[in-house]
């Protein structure tokens, strides 16, 4: 009955009803991706899509092989032949960056897929179960959250002489699922007690349908957010590990380029064409991913979007949302607009 008043207050305010969707396959698909249908998410997806294309078409796009040594052109600043200049061995930086995209995208997505699968299974199961089983899964999640990940990854990675990308992705995934699982568990627990889940159970729906058809659709936004979050973490983790040198430097990604640049003193000799592009690429993909997550956040919690946007819209009309006193305005202006 607490909600009685709340719904009434909310009803005092105008609500915007979206147009009635037909329950066709297309509408269903559309609503599954509703969380991406906002400007922030679309911008983010476009940037991400660009990098994915670059990764796929690396062979076509790169003007040189990333390892092709041009001893005549060492440490050249950008020129017509080498758009982003060359390294200390005369390798083409642009080609390295283009090929480096591959490693980043592949590892980022592989790790995120693994982490998300673990997070969904652990989170949803822990949220749906009760009692000690739920508690122990939650404790396990928290242990993975609390144990510092990077040192562990460094130690594990150092045990392989030449770890393949899959192993790196697996290690990043195995250490990166806990946050998503924690969020999903909390949300599942709140869903579990909702009446529509009770109703489905009373209908005699089997467990797999209750989880798959009743709960998961309502968790999609959070799952997407946790996926995007782990991609970000995995990409930062991969480039960091590559920069540190834990991951062998002969597989190209943006972190290894920076490792070479740093080792050859590019930062101290202002060879900006060498160290700026890979760093900016990581930043760009990071921005893209956080834009997507901003979009999802605002879809999940409309208050976040509406708060800012509405406040700005109000300001344009001469109203201040922080004003603790209701504004008084003679009818003319409001009715003119109406």
């Amino acid at each position, binding site marked *: 009955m607490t909600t009685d008043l709340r719904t009434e207050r909310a009803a005092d305010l105008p609500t915007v009803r979206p147009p009635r969707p037909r329950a066709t396959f297309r509408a269903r698909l559309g609503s599954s991706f509703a969380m991406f249908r906002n400007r922030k998410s679309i911008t983010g997806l476009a940037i991400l899509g660009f990098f994915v294309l670059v990764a796929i078409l690396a062979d076509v796009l790169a003007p040189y092989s990333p390892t092709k040594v041009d001893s005549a052109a060492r440490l050249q600043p950008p020129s017509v032949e080498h758009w982003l200049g060359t390294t200390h061995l005369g390798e083409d930086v642009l080609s390295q960056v283009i090929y480096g995209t591959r490693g980043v995208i592949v590892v980022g997505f592989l790790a995120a897929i693994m982490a998300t699968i673990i997070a969904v299974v652990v989170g949803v199961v822990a949220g749906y179960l009760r009692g000690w089983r739920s508690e122990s899964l939650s*404790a396990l999640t*928290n*242990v993975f*959250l*609390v*144990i*510092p*990940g*990077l*040192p*562990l990854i*460094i*130690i*594990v990675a*150092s*045990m392989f002489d030449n770890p393949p990308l899959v192993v790196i992705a697996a290690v990043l995934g195995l250490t990166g699922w806990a*946050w998503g699982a924690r969020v999903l568990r909390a949300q599942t627990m709140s869903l579990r007690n909702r009446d529509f889940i009770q109703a489905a159970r009373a209908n005699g729906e089997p467990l797999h349908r209750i989880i798959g058809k009743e709960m998961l659709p309502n968790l999609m936004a959070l799952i997407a957010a946790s996926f995007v979050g782990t991609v*970000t973490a995995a990409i*930062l983790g991969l*480039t*960091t590990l590559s*920069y*540190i*040198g*834990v991951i062998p430097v002969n597989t190209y990604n943006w*972190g290894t380029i*920076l490792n070479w640049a*740093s080792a050859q003193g590019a*930062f*101290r000799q*202002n060879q900006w064409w060498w*160290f700026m592009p890979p*760093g900016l690429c*990581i*930043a760009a993909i*990071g*921005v893209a*991913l*956080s834009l997507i997550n901003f979009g999802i*956040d605002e879809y999940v*919690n409309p*208050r*976040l979007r509406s*708060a*800012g946007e*509405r*406040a*700005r819209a*109000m*300001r344009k009309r001469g109203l201040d*949302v*922080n004003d*603790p006193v209701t504004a008084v305005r003679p009818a003319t202006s409001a009715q003119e607009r109406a």
Partner: protein
Amino acid sequence: MTAVQPQMPTQDALEVGTTATTAVKGRSRIPWRFLAGRAAFYLFTLWAAITINFFLPRMMKGDAVSQYLSRNRNVSPEAADALRSLLGLDTDKALLHQYVDYWGLLLRGDLGVSLLHGLRPVTEVISQALPWTVGLVGFATLVSFAIGTIGGGIVGWRRGSRLDGLIPVTTFLATIPYFWLGLLAIAVFSVNLGWFPIGKAYGVGMRPEWTAEFIGQVIHHGTLPAVTIVIASLGGWMLGMRNMMLTVLDEDYVMVAQAKGLPNKRVLWRYAARNAVLPQIQSFALSIGFIVGGTIVMEMVFSYPGVGKLLLDATNAKDYALMQGVFLVITLSVLVANILADIAYAFLDPRTRQTEA
């Protein structure tokens, strides 16, 4: 009221507890149940970390000592055996036996010896590095948390103003890789502008001592690493606090505070921010593990003589005892920081003091 029903019960229905939430009698000001639950969790985590630590060197192909020997040929076989027993890698013992021995050594504070540092005890090596890390990173993290939380509170309160623009900026700074930011900072402020020294904790030829000159050096050397840590981690705190503020500002008690005629400042800090900060503290506790990861990179970039640098050097030299020791110490400090955050949370949120969940 124009009419009062005469046959009303005289007993106080509140004392009987007519609703499900009866008042808790005899409550204690110290949240024992909450703290006990957390303590059990930390003990479990500690056990898990130590056990991982035990198994890590045993998962490798060959053993650590043989690998070490293969690269350092001037070690005698007797010395190698001694090393094995120091590391608890006596292969002729059963695994369980090794595990028990390992715990015995740990409880005596014996983490083995470091091959990299001339067979000095690992504890000694780490205890030299630890203060640098804890000092610099602890300071920078607290500063970042404070600025981010206060800033996020203000941005959330003044939503829709130009301050909203801060959020994308700080988020951008948080998405660029930390090591790159650090290297750029060195390139700009140390190499080109010459304002700060390039890395290290203090100048060459200095000896750690409590003199004004030395402390000045430490501050001069520490500024760039500290500032970069703050810049890189500010965004998360700010965004989190701002989002929480937006949620809290819609709560009824904020409206009540305004209806009470309280000045805005009081509503902002005592009502809105005071509640919004609680989830911040919880995420602070949980993100300490991530912060430590950043530390390692920071120490590499700035050649700072802390435990992170120690770990990287140990990893490159395959000095397993030192690696294990560092990992253990890092985990321990994360747990201690977590406990501190938990205690702070318990005392800031009276609801954890409830005796019954």
